[in-house]
């Protein structure tokens, strides 16, 4: 399983803060994103944002990053702390 987290505006858009995704057939963030976007139109729209950022195991990553069983992946909008 891959643990997937969503934060801030994205979390609200999806109405979901976390879910588990079967790691079979998923080797990259891009594949994970495609799988999630396939759930329905709302997910497709929310995950289509070019500004979307991703972290793998709590470190910022790119959409090309590898992902494997047991990883924690988080999607979120650009950060606005400070």
């Amino acid at each position, binding site marked *: 399983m891959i643990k997937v*987290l969503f*934060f*801030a*505006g994205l*979390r609200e858009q999806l109405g979901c803060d976390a879910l588990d995704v079967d790691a079979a057939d998923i080797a990259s963030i891009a594949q994970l994103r495609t799988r999630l976007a396939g759930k329905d139109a709302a997910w497709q729209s929310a995950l289509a944002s070019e*500004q979307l950022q991703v*972290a793998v195991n*709590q*470190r*910022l990553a790119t959409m090309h990053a590898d992902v494997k069983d047991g990883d924690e992946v*988080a999607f*979120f*909008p*650009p*950060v*606005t*702390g*400070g």
Partner: protein
Amino acid sequence: MAAIISVSVQAEGFDPGEEYRSLRSENFADGATAMFVGNVRDFSPIEPVGSPVENSKGNSVAVLELEHYPGMAESALTDIARQAAQRWPLGRVRVIHRFGQLRAGEEIVFVGTSSAHRQAALDACAFIMDFLKSRAPFWKKEIGQGAESGHWVQARHSDEDALKKW
């Protein structure tokens, strides 16, 4: 000598005066201390009579809600502080970032650096703030007075651009 780095991600408030004393305590090697504090703003440059209180840019902010990614927030701030300590000869680095609901005037973030050199302390403080703004997983939502839902603050290109100078 490695810098002493301390990072806190917390709901509670903090006292910049106390943080200053902690940066200085038994610290005779560093003659320079730089600090930055970010507070919740609350201002209404244009507030027409009778208009609803809005939570968008430039209007009155009653409450700021700060969401964060627990775990990653701490490690991202620690990573940024370590990068600063590798780049400049720092004695101590202190970073605090709050989460949860904050009212106007309250402290959100504290960055403090001490060094034997003023430029190192000042540059490291600015560097940490710049990277924190664009790399640490915190998100601000402005909730207007009386408003039920809020407005997510949008990231600014100028914040991303600020990283280029380092």
